[in-house]
């Protein structure tokens, strides 16, 4: 008997169907992948299972018993544990409190919070993921984004008497993790499987799916298409099932060599907390920056973007001196930015898509630089949306209503909507499905071919190797090497990131 059986799950948002009939089951002791392109309905299905979104119709059985999960507490009682896709933390509360969010804290005399036991339990849970460097008493907001993600993930693994966990559901947990952190997570998942629990796992990283999952269910346009053993299916077939077409290569081929003239130059630029950096980005070049988590990549981009002051040094954009005092200056000069955290830094979730994409370019798109021309903005949003394969009801749809990957595409569309000379990308394809990723890569290549410079920060080494022309390796807020991507492979790049000279 399956641990969990879902039959004919349907859900429409305001009349627009998101799920049109999903059927799937999860066996005890398996890691089951849920796959599908952006907007296919994966997160919706998970939220229904978690009791935070109500289905229009659903037959949910756990251990053969029909269940009506209409709130998160019920789901928890039934032994279900969730890590939802979006970054849902409370930055002002401590790490330990975030781990226990929604759970009953350990108490003394049945009332007062027992802080020591709370922190101990949190430490233990973190230990399980191999995390020892995080003090559970620190405010979560003071941690790096990757660490925040780890804390959030570990919250699914706290044990609590009376409600043994049967199924862990993780919606794109690795999107902001480094590869080491991901590896440790996989170890824990395998260990849980060994203990008899099951895992429902969502990711757009096919290599992860191929390596840790036992079975996969693919959904497309809100319908379940197929379920099968991972061992029986090839990478390419999975892609075809998901997006309905073949994607031959992961990365589009390079078209000619970058030009000789520089698009951007940094001379002895002192970034916050770092030494001085010097590098060139030629017109048409994709300049990758590699490094372990938080070695200053973000500050480099923020300095280039005018959001952090450079204590000394100079920058040149297209040959002219470039001294941005604010992001507004940077956009005006033709520098576009795709920040790392789409929801907190990239998007105004409560506003329509077209208002998001036009925001940095508003003056240029307006009459006398002051009066709005919403038609024009919408047309341009539609055009940009098509380029990045945005799946949305229309340009006036609120960004909040988009799926995670489609939100990321809006951030991308926004950066490209103006006349960009230099594009700064911080983990730009996080959460984007494999088909759209290819299209976005193609788009970047085409724009580069027209003379744009690109700075690409990514923790995804294959992405860097596949896309960048040159790769700078950063350690301790300094660039240690700049190398031709063609001369590198993953292992060598990783060693450089760690500062190991061997290999």
């Amino acid at each position: 008997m399956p641990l969990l059986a879902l039959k004919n799950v349907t859900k429409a948002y305001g009349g627009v169907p998101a799920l049109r009939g999903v059927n799937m089951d999860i066996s005890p002791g398996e890691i089951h992948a849920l796959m599908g392109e952006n907007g296919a309905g994966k997160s919706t299905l998970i939220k229904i299972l978690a009791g935070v979104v109500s289905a229009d119709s659903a037959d949910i059985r756990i251990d053969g018993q029909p269940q009506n999960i209409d709130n998160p507490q019920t789901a928890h009682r039934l032994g279900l544990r969730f890590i939802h896709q979006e970054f849902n933390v409370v930055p002002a509360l401590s790490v330990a409190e975030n781990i226990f969010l929604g759970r009953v804290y350990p108490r003394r005399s049945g009332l007062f919070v027992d802080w020591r036991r709370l922190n101990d339990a949190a430490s233990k849970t973190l230990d399980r993921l191999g995390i020892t460097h995080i003090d559970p008493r620190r405010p979560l907001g003071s941690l790096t984004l990757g660490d925040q993600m780890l804390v959030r993930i570990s919250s699914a693994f706290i044990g609590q008497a009376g409600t043994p966990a049967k199924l862990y559901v993780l919606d794109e947990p690795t999107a902001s993790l480094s590869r080491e952190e991901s590896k440790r997570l996989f170890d824990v998942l395998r260990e849980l499987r060994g203990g008899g629990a099951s895992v429902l796992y969502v990711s757009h990283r096919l290599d992860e799916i191929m390596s840790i999952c036992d079975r996969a269910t693919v959904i497309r346009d809100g319908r379940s298409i197929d379920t099968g053993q991972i061992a029986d299916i090839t990478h390419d077939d999975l892609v075809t099932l998901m997006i309905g077409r073949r994607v031959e290569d992961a990365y589009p081929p390079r078209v000619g060599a970058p030009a000789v003239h520089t698009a951007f130059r940094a001379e002895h630029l002192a970034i916050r907390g770092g030494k001085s950096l010097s590098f060139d980005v030629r017109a048409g070049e994709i300049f990758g920056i590699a490094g372990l988590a938080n070695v200053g990549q973000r500050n480099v981009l923020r300095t280039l973007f005018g959001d952090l002051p450079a204590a000394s040094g100079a920058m040149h954009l297209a040959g002219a001196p470039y001294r941005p005092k604010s992001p507004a200056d940077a956009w005006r000069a033709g520098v576009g930015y795709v920040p790392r955290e789409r929801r907190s830094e990239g998007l105004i979730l409560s506003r329509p898509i077209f208002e998001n994409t036009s925001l940095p370019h508003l003056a240029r798109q307006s009459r006398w630089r002051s009066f709005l021309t919403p038609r024009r903005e919408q047309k341009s949003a539609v055009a940009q949306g098509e380029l990045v394969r945005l799946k949305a009801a229309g340009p006036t749809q609120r960004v909040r209503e988009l799926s995670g990957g489609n939100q990321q595409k809006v951030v991308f569309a926004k950066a490209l909507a103006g006349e960009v000379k230099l594009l700064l990308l911080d983990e730009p394809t996080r959460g984007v499905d494999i088909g759209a990723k290819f299209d976005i890569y193609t788009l970047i290549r085409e724009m580069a071919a027209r003379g744009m410079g690109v700075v690409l920060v990514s923790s995804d080494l294959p992405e860097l190797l596949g896309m960048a022309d040159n790769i700078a390796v950063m350690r301790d807020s300094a660039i240690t090497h700049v190398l031709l991507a063609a001369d590198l492979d993953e292992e060598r790049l990783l060693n450089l990131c760690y500062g190991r000279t061997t290999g």
Partner: protein
Amino acid sequence: MRNVFSIFATVAPQVNIMLTLLRRYGTLIGFAAILLFFWISLPDTFMTARNWLNISQQMSMLIVVAAGMTIVMVMGDFDLSVGSMASLAGIAVAVLFTVDLPIWAAVSLALMVGLVGGAINGVLISFIGILPFVATLATLTMLSGLAFVVSGGKTISGRVIPEGFSSFARGGLSLGEWGGVAITLPNLTLVAIVIVALVWVLLEQTTFGRRLYAIGGNIEAAHLSGVAVRKLKLIAFALTGSTAALAGIMYASRVASANPTQGSSLMLNAIAGVFLGSTFSEHGEPRVLGTILGVLILGILDNGLTQLSVDSYIRQILVGGIIILAVSTSSLTKHLRS
């Protein structure tokens, strides 16, 4: 999220459409019902041009303040100091009359007071980084103290107020006859209409307004998208201060006197109007036309219930109850979105 209405979640699409209508227009429908009720109970006096022009004139000062308040509330901020600012501007214009300044000069200077006071709020909030509530509460206190000091705590009235100034509020634009009665659009109403139109253009038709909405949605993302957050906040608060001052001047013209507390009821009512108005917009954001509707509803309830000779105390209870009922319709159904 589920709620008392979740049983409807599985019903037919027609019902869904009806619910969508209720959600968007619930509050409006509720108030239309009230209008109808007043119309029927007061057949001869409520739905008359005369009464409506009266209401519009009574509400004109609040409308101006509320329109200005919308500007900062779009960014998710407040300005608690508008009432004191109105009082101070009224006092300022009256005091300037006592030194025999011509009307235009006194009015312009009083408006400047509003602009500068608002800009000070803006600096405190955006450059110094004080919470809007704390900053504008502090300026509320200071401006009110200033109004008392400047006026010596007294009401300024009588001959010092030039006839030309107080006759402005009494005058109006003749609209011809209707049912044998000469209909005049009061000057104060006209001013309010102009201000509302300006704020509407500003918020809905210009890049400035769009950016304010962006700040209100996500200040960090707006900043990274090239919005000059601080500068815009400063300008927005300065504008709000100016509208408050204008309202204070209108008030002084209407009552032909100035008193250091006369603006104090404006603040809470203006904020209430903005919030009430925001229940009309699909996504709950403040919009100036909604604000005006919100403010008018408050005024109409007062007018209708007074005409019905409802006891003042009972009237208070009814106003509160009616607002809750009307807002509930759209709030309850709004839950259904998710």
